[in-house]
């Protein structure tokens, strides 16, 4: 190939042009259309990772053109290449250390002067450059004309026109990239230097000369670039030169002197003067090659903004859109979530089918309760996450997100958060996991971390079952709604305090000052939305699922082992005895129907109709029909949350009684028998067996590590008003907040079915005071988040220690807050 290997380093990112491989880096301002172009180039062949040690996304992809394999690195969108922000440092380090074969600099054509500021710095880096004039159609429509040939000559790099969202110009870009990449490195390129005026140029040259002895430094970074950066007092470059230069003292003194000269002559610091000169260079280049015939101050975007950023209408639009996002994520997502839950249920049943029904195999339990239960518990969030990110991608790509930040900034700023933090907070009311993912819309790492760390305090949907269990158990109807509201308000108040504390003690110093570009509104492309959504959803799946799987298995093991082998009661025998009693009761009925006395046909789940007498079959069908009608009634009442004194309840009940009456009409002689079968024989027996099984589960759980831990921490929980049963349920709830209810059900041996709620409430009322009930809710609200949140926080913050910090901090807070509430309540005499 014409292009010989001309790269020394052999890092994985530096693909040597051996044969047909070219590495290009995309650089450009945020909102310049860089990502759209990246998607156009690479399509679905993308890989998203993180730059080592930082949470900046690192996107790479591959595309093929004319037999070349072109590796495309999408650098973070930056306005400049200083060392002040993580994104800029990452972009700069990549360019310097990995020296891609071609740097493709994307410019927003309608905003070219500001965009060229980054270009001046790329020119100084001395890497082969291709400029892309993106969205040139919009610019032309706004009356901006370009003399591309002249601009290209002035900037010393080829220029390609593209329209990213219409996928126009991608091919000519690739052509230019290949042409530049295959130019032998020793071919003289048009030498363009950004001029800083005579005096500054002289200072630059002087410093450059001082550095020229340091072969290694100069060949790696380029002498002029180093000199300019030293003059700008770029701390990172200063550090590198200090450790690499032979005559550091001389260089340092020369730079200090030069900076003093510049400041004296121009009345401003060197970096400002240099920046000014860069704009001067740009302005010179543009004057010769860009003509703006009409000055359109009020573009379409501005007209939309007149409403969208308006104090009142803007807020209304924002609230409406946020409601839309919330609705889409949780209401539209719910049926999909149900389908996934059902699928995992089926999978669990299918796996369970591999063992005999009464098998006690630990492997069966591990697979079903640990692996499928745990991973399924995470995967069911996938529809919500996909919908949420599709909505967010749409808002981001359209340019609205920046306006949302503007609208919310005043409120959020008072709390100490960024305007955009509002969005994750809102999502947090549904589920903390996608909320943590949604913090990706925040640019500053500090803002992201602060938001992420307090997010679990926003009461998520999984806490609702806890409130739904406890509030009716302890509080009279007129207090229930205020109690529920109080839980949400307490959560928000604690989150606000949490932000203040984090800002004061952990993330000291000012929050990132708010400067943000409001990009022009654009119609998002389907491709862009799909790619962005998939990127984030797959990141969630890949990383979160590994940690969650491990935790699920651990939690399963803790709740299962050590397994008590010699139980206090012989449950098997009792269950067998119960079956015997039922059969005895059944014998009379069998006799009346002319069945053999020991026949279990009438209570069998499925019936072999051909082998049974006709009237017995009819009785079983009638029994099933009554059962189905009762179940429908119960479900209707539960679904609509009907109160027994409401008219709607009355209507449903009337309908139900009518149904039963019709059933009675179909077989008047069998109907009493069916009722007897259901209510006197089968029902009591089933309840008895359920009781026995619940008692066994309770005994097993009490003996397991979780139960022992619960007892172990009982002295610790006593001051909060909790006993070991609550402790055990709290530990079990680590796997998911909603599990608290199920765990309480097991500990109290009422079983974990939904219908057990009332039985459980009665038990709780018996054992605890309303104050303890309140304290349980408080503790559940504040204490350590669920495993999924832990996993996703660890992944999104890039450090597991943040997740540990969060879990520990929240649990400690929960302890203190609950302790205070209980002790204070007891003092005030609320404890009885």
């Amino acid at each position, binding site marked *: 190939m014409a292009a010989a290997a001309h790269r020394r380093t052999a890092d994985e990112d530096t693909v040597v042009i051996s044969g047909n491989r070219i590495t290009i880096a995309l650089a450009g301002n945020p909102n310049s259309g860089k990502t759209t172009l990246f998607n156009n180039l690479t399509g679905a062949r993308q890989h998203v990772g993180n730059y080592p040690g930082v949470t900046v996304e690192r996107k790479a992809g591959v595309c093929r053109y004319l037999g070349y394999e072109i590796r495309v690195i999408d650098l973070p969108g*930056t*306005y*400049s290449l*200083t060392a*002040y*922000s993580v994104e800029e440092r990452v972009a700069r380090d990549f360019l310097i250390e990995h020296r891609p074969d071609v740097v493709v600099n994307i410019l927003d054509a*309608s*905003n*070219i*002067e*500001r965009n060229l*500021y*980054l270009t001046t710095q790329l020119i100084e880096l001395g890497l082969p450059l291709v400029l892309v004039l993106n969205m040139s159609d919009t610019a032309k429509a706004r009356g901006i004309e370009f003399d591309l040939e002249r601009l290209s000559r002035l900037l010393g790099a080829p220029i390609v026109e593209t329209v990213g969202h219409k996928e126009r110009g991608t091919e000519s870009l690739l052509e230019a990239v290949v042409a530049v990449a295959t130019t032998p490195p020793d071919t003289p390129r048009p030498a363009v230097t950004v001029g800083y005026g005579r005096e500054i140029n002289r200072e630059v040259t002087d410093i450059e000369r001082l550095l020229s002895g340091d072969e290694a430094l100069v060949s790696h970074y380029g002498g002029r670039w180093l000199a300019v950066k030293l003059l700008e*007092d770029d701390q990172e470059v200063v550090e590198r030169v200090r450790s690499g230069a032979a005559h550091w003292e001389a260089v340092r003194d020369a730079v200090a002197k030069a900076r003093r000269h510049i400041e004296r002559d121009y009345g*401003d*610091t060197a*970096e*400002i003067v240099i*920046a*000014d000169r860069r*704009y001067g260079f740009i302005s010179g280049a543009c004057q010769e090659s860009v003509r703006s015939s009409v000055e359109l*101050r009020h573009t379409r*975007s*501005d007209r939309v*903004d007149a409403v969208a*950023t308006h*104090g009142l209408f803007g807020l209304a639009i924002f609230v409406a859109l946020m409601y839309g996002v919330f609705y889409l994520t949780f209401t539209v997502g719910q049926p999909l979530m149900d389908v996934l839950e059902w699928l995992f249920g089926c999978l669990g049943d299918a796996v369970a089918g591999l063992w005999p029904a009464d098998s006690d195999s630990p492997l069966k339990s591990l697979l079903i309760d640990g692996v499928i239960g745990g991973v399924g518990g995470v995967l069911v969030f996938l529809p919500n996450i996909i919908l949420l990110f599709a909505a967010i991608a749409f808002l981001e790509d359209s340019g609205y997100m*920046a306006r949302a*930040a*503007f609208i919310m*900034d*005043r409120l959020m*700023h008072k709390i100490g958060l960024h*305007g955009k933090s509002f969005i994750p907070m809102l999502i947090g009311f549904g589920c903390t996991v996608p909320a943590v993912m949604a913090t990706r819309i925040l640019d500053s790492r500090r803002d992201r971390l602060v938001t992420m760390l307090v997010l679990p305090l926003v009461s998520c949907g999984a806490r609702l079952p806890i409130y739904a269990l406890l509030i009716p158990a302890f509080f009279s109807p007129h207090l229930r709604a205020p109690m529920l509201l109080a839980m949400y308000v307490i959560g928000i108040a604690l989150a606000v305090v949490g932000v203040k504390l984090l800002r004061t003690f952990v993330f000291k110093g000012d929050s990132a*000052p*708010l*400067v*943000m*570009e*409001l*990009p*022009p509104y654009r119609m998002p492309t389907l491709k862009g939305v799909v790619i962005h959504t998939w990127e984030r959803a797959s990141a969630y799946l890949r990383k979160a699922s590994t940690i969650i799987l491990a935790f699920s298995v651990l939690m399963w093991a803790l709740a299962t082992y050590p397994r008590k082998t010699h139980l206090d009661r012989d449950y098997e025998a009792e269950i067998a005895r119960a079956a015997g009693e039922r059969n005895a009761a059944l014998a009379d009925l069998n006799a009346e129907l002319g069945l053999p006395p020991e026949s279990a046909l009438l209570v069998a789940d499925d019936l072999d109709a051909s082998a049974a007498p006709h009237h017995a079959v009819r009785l079983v069908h009638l029994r099933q029909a009554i059962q189905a009608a009762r179940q429908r009634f119960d479900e209707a009442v539960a679904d609509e949350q009907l109160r027994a004194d409401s008219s709607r309840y009355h209507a449903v009940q009337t309908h139900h009684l009518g149904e039963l009456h019709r059933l009675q009409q179909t077989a008047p002689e069998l109907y009493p028998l069916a009722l007897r079968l259901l209510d006197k024989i089968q029902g009591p027996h089933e309840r008895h067996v359920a009781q026995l099984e619940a008692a066994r589960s309770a005994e097993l759980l009490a003996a397991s590590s979780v139960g022992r831990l619960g007892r172990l921490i009982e002295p610790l929980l006593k001051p909060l008003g909790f006993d070991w049963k609550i402790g055990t349920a709290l530990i079990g709830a680590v796997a998911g907040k909603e599990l608290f209810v199920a765990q309480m059900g097991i500990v109290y041996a009422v079983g974990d079915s939904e219908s057990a709620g009332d039985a459980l409430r009665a038990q709780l009322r018996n054992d605890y005071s309303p104050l303890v009930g309140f304290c349980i809710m408080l503790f559940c609200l504040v204490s350590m988040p669920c495993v999924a949140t832990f996993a996703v926080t660890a992944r999104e913050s890039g450090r597991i220690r943040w997740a540990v910090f969060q879990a520990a901090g929240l649990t400690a807070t929960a302890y203190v807050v609950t302790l205070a509430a209980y002790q204070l309540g007891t003092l005030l005499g609320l404890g009885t």
Partner: protein
Amino acid sequence: MSLSAVVEGAIVRLVRVNAGCGLRSRLTAMGLVPGAELQVVRNGGRGPFIVAVKGTRLMLGRGMAEHIVVR
């Protein structure tokens, strides 16, 4: 005067930014250099600001606008 005192719709010229190097360099890169022409698009009296500069719209926190000197 400070940018925060400029009324909506007014066009001003940036004189200097009173801030640390990091912030100043960031503002510079976004087009807020001495001599640049700014139009205040939105200044609600409280909360953040929107200004038009070099063909883009920038949102600035109120605190920051107070540190930007214009004429």
